[in-house]
């Protein structure tokens, strides 16, 4: 027993040591190849969220090689799984890890990190090192990456505009021979007859399945970022002014409709409490309509998810707001030793078609083959469901430069441009509110909203009769909504006067 134990022990410790040695990261010390007088070779590390790709090392090496003449960098791109992104991103910034290009967005703490001084201001360097970005036809998006006059983030040019409404099961639409006009902007009242038909003829199908947080916050064009924001700017309006969402005419009207629909049984009865993802219900054929983005590309991807043909009833024109532009950005952290080179790389990412496609799809012939000039498909031997290299299309540089993959619409890149340019621009486009002075008010207001929003916006109770609505408004006032509005409008007006 004793000998056996000692043997096992030695074996185990041995295994651990051997394994830890072999797994040690190999030092990437490479003799820095001096390029007669040109740029010295440096390491360039880029970090973004995403599923780590099997062939990342190969693609990194190819990109370094491709950029050897112009940038001469030893490129390393590391993707951090979505599951660990928030934690790792915070730790990278807090620990001052050396990174040259880092992904950022409001949903990964852009504002806080910018305020902390985690990113370099590249406003002055931009014309010299990134002329491609500075002179692009979408350089107006740069305002969203600014805080004051400091430029911290370079927005990726992607599907920035948004259009929301109802996504419905097309088969049911056809079954009852109902009219549908894709180009029209519907009002909720226009949509009611459709719900009525389904309610009367399909007893097993819920006409509209939604979550309370989505019903109203998603059917009106507020420029808000979170579902519980209580003040915002109407992104499709003419006037840039913050107002109390819950007191606006638009909201009150929709609130009454929600109540009406709930009473008529058009909406799922468990709306106030359910956490089921509506898209699953649509896929399972349990409901007729859901609240969602209705722009054509978003609809197309949902069609794939559901395996059903869908139709999108727009409830608003396509619009563009600061928070939507900020959806994907790259910044240069202050820990970067070569910010100029990092900026040059970012510029390449926005202008170099080959580079962007390499970052997203990998290497030609190895990961994809060309079908036509701008369309590609998976290379032979690559399973399209489990590719060894395939990244998110909306993350890198300029999405309009991308090839279309597989059965994607070959017109998609040009549609993207048109969609973004045609969208109604928010009157406060580019303004980012600095909330640091109002932390307490915002926390208090969120608490009040969290308590009342499910009841009010779901239409489950008659908020007027019960006096809930008045109580809610009174509580918002007590929590300091007027102070918040005052501060927001003050900052907004200052910003407007500088434009």
């Amino acid at each position, binding site marked *: 027993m004793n000998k056996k134990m000692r043997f096992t*022990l030695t074996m*185990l*410790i041995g*295994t*651990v040591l051997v*394994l*830890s040695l072999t*797994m*040690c*990261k190999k030092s990437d010390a490479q003799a820095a190849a001096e390029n007669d007088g040109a740029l010295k070779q440096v390491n360039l590390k880029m970090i973004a969220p995403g*599923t*780590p790709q*099997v062939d990342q090392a190969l693609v990194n090496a190819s990109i370094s090689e491709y950029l050897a003449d112009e940038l001469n960098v030893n490129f390393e791109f*590391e993707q*951090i*799984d*979505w*599951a*660990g992104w928030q*934690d*790792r991103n915070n*730790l990278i910034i*807090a*620990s*001052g*890890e050396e990174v040259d290009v880092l992904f950022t967005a409001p949903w990964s703490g852009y504002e806080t990190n910018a305020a902390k001084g985690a990113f370099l201001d590249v406003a002055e360097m931009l014309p010299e090192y990134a002329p491609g970005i500075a002179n692009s036809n979408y350089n107006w998006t740069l305002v969203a990456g600014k805080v004051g006059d400091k430029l911290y983030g370079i927005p990726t040019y*992607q*599907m920035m505009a948004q259009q929301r409404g109802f996504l419905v099961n097309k088969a049911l639409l056809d079954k009852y021979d109902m009219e549908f006009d894709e180009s029209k902007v519907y009002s909720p009242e226009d949509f009611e007859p459709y719900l009525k038909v389904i309610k009367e003829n399909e007893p097993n199908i819920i006409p509209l399945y939604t979550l309370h947080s989505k019903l109203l916050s998603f059917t009106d064009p507020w420029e808000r970022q979170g579902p519980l924001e209580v003040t915002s700017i109407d992104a499709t309006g003419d006037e840039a002014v913050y107002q109390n969402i819950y007191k606006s005419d638009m909201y009150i009207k929709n609130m009454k409709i929600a109540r009406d629909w709930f009473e008529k049984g058009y909406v799922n009865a468990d709306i106030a409490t359910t956490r*089921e*993802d509506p*898209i*699953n*219900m649509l*896929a*399972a*054929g*349990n409901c007729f309509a859901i609240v*969602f*983005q209705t722009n054509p*590309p*978003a609809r*197309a*991807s*949902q069609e*794939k*998810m559901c*395996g059903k043909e869908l139709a999108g009833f727009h409830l608003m024109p396509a619009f563009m707001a600061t928070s939507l532009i900020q959806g994907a950005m790259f910044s240069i952290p202050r820990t970067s030793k070569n910010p100029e080179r990092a900026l040059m790389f970012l510029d390449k990412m926005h202008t170099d078609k080959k580079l962007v496609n390499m970052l997203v799809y990998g290497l030609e012939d190895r990961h994809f083959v060309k079908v036509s000039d701008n369309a590609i498909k998976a290379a032979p031997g690559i399973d*399209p*469901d*489990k590719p060894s290299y*395939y*990244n*998110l*299309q*909306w993350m890198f540089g300029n999405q309009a430069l991308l090839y279309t993959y*597989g059965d994607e619409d070959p017109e998609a890149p040009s549609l993207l441009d048109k969609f973004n340019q045609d969208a109604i621009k928010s009157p406060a486009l580019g303004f980012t509110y600095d909330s640091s002075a109002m932390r307490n008010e915002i926390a208090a207001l969120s608490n009040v909203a969290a308590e009342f929003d499910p009841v009010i916006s779901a239409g489950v109770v008659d908020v007027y009769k019960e006096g809930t609505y008045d109580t809610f408004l009174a509580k918002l006032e007590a929590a300091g909504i007027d102070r918040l509005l005052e501060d927001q409008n003050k900052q907004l007006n200052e910003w407007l006067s500088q434009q």
Partner: protein
Amino acid sequence: MKKRSLTEITIPSKILINLIFIIVSLICIVPFILVISVSITDESIIMREGYRLIPSVVNLSAYEYLFTDINQIVRSYMISIIVTASGTLLSLILTAMYAYPLYRKDFPFRKFFAFFIFFTMLFNGGLVPFYIMYTQVLNLRNNLFALIMPFLLNPFFVIIMRTYFTQNIPDSVIESAILDGAGELRILTKIILPLAMPVFATIGLFVTIIYWNDWFMSLLFISKNENISIQYYMYKTMLNIQFMLNNPQAAAMAGSIKIPSETIRMAMAVVGIGPIVIAYPFFQRYFVKGLTVGAIKG
């Protein structure tokens, strides 16, 4: 009429006792069976009918989805097993080597070292310094040892072990061993260790579970997908599905794959539970033995 012996149990109370234990066992087992049966149910059936003990349509797509990556699963399993086994062993050795001197009354800096380890229970550096230490000072990123080291010495277990020693092993045992000519190492391995088997089993079980359930260290330190532990593999598969469901743009990337999220969750629980189920009976043997030995000696 037969006279009832004192230890005999009447039929009604037998039934009652059995009933109680049957119910208790059911409460433990039924949820587990439910997890298994949900994991083999068709996703759309769950949407329509909810959870059922006996699935009306059996569908193994959740397992198919999980096992498309069979190599990765086997590898992650191996990593978890190596980390758990070697981590538990090293941890037990270290804990014993810290706790034993604290128990010895003739150890000169006993009070200082007792306080030294106790202090870390009250105050610690926090996550960021911890991360900096591991990645920039010790340079353990992408190193298997980064998964083992953080849990090697737990002050709470040291205190438990020391308390066990002081309460169960009288000083005279050590004195007599010294008189018999045993060296320090021999005393520890031949006398203390066998006497303290129950506490080793208990702490061993705790540490095993800590190592087996850990996913956070993989999240922090391992960036190469193939070297992560099974728990983190499951965790991230789950979160990635969630992300795809909530993000239409990312979902577009997944193409037309239908993701059975509800069933996958359950399938993961089934796959992840594996070795721990086996570990319990193994440790239980020591538990029972340790308890009875302790009882006889009083």
